[in-house]
């Protein structure tokens, strides 16, 4: 993998020096995005997001749980990601590794800080019982840019989540009491920095050949989750520019989950 990284870095920067990407895209151009909503019946919400060769499935389960002691007046939101070994040759079976945990936490922060879901509404008995929302991200194909695909899948799944009826503090999953309220469309833009260039929506080769990646999630007029992932550096000025681009590109992405 290490040699592959170096090799990809050389290839991608070589192509970039001629102003090209291997698949012929512009630097700030997304691959085709396809989203399939409500694809599972057992999960309360679900969606599949495919960007180029990347495919991420999001499943939403709802349960009744005890609230966290320091947040007794709020429902629970929990996000997990599984790099299932069928998703890429280098994914291995076993407990989630740092990369999977990072993906889950970046998505979690985006959904949580945007307040797209009002967790205060998910209290059943204050201090005792609350509704827990579990987002699980299933990476079926790693073709680069898992962050944007995962957040798109999560948002599309949340927006289609059926709320089961709550009877005597238990869920009756056979009956629905409407849909989960999602007040904002949260989307993220992932950039791969290679040399001095930033590539939006990196492919797998561009991602592993990059010096660093920058992920910026926006909701309306606010940033709501950010991550620099990788050892390379970025300047203050560059970060400012990426933030501007993220707000601009977010409009395009919102259409995909609308």
């Amino acid at each position, binding site marked *: 993998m290490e040699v*592959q990284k170096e090799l990809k870095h050389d*290839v991608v920067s070589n*192509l970039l020096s001629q102003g*090209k990407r*291997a*698949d*012929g895209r512009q630097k700030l151009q997304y691959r085709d995005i396809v989203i399939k909503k409500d694809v599972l019946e057992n999960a309360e919400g679900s969606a599949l997001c495919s960007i180029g060769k990347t495919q991420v499935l999001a499943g939403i389960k709802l349960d009744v749980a005890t609230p966290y002691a320091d947040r007794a007046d709020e429902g629970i939101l929990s996000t997990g990601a599984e790099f299932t070994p069928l998703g890429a040759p280098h994914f291995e079976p076993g407990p989630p590794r740092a990369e999977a945990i990072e993906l889950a936490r970046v998505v979690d922060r985006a959904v949580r800080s945007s307040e797209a879901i009002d967790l205060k509404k998910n209290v059943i008995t204050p201090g005792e019982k609350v509704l827990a929302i579990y987002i699980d991200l299933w990476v079926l194909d790693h073709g680069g840019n898992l962050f944007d695909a995962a957040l798109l899948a999560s948002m599309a799944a949340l927006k289609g989540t059926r709320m089961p009826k709550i009877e005597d503090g238990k869920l009756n999953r056979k009956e629905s009491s409407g849909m989960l309220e999602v007040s904002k469309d949260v989307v993220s833009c992932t950039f791969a920095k290679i040399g001095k260039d930033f590539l939006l929506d990196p492919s797998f*080769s561009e991602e592993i050949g990059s010096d660093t990646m920058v992920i910026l999630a926006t909701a309306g007029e606010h940033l709501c989750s950010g991550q620099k992932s990788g050892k390379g550096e970025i300047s203050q000025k560059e970060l400012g520019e990426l933030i501007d681009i993220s707000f601009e590109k977010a409009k395009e992405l919102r259409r995909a989950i609308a």
Partner: protein
Amino acid sequence: MARIVVPGEAVSEKPAKMAYTYSDGKKTYATIISMLTDENKLIPLQGPYEPLKDDIIVGYVNDVRFAGYSIALGAPNSAFLASRNTRSTFELGNIVMARIESVDEVGTIDISEAKVLENGRIERISPVKVPRLIGKKNSMISMIADASQCKIVVGRNGFIFITNDGDGALANEAIDIVEAQAHTPGLTDRMADFLSKKCGREIKPRPQENMMEMPRSPPQRREGGYGSRPPRREHGRRKY
């Protein structure tokens, strides 16, 4: 008519000696998803790379050792290029083309005649589709190279070297088409049409003798059971 057969499907009502089949003494069955041609031969549609002597391969240096270089091929085992088999020196990450010197029964691959390929990248295709990508006398690959203005080297192992000059995205697109339609007839003509349209000039298949050496016969010519490895000693294994 040619048809697609799946593993375990009978391809002959009597025991027969064909590549990619086995017999239970009564009938002959396919072992791999393949096209059964009118000439009663099986052309695999998918499958791993089986290294054979004299194959031209494309790989990259993934380790430098005392006695030589380890070259990744996308096969389970990396190939080994002994220092005594080459006059050049290589660096980690160099993309190379080479000829397979020998393959032993546990899959150790020795290569020679290695040459560095510069200013380009590796794309992958299913190894069983390599003969189709090259075409008769290089007709397919020379067309793609002509249209895209890229230099292209196809390794038997399914690694394809494409230079950064030229329209690499078009080369990729054309290779994807071959990958998806390798088993369909008339592909060369369709490719010529596709490339001509994309380039706005006429692209024709022009068979060439010496663009690339591909001494290996296509897999359908191999006979005598799956692959044509030398028979190995049985270690009390059940025969199938």
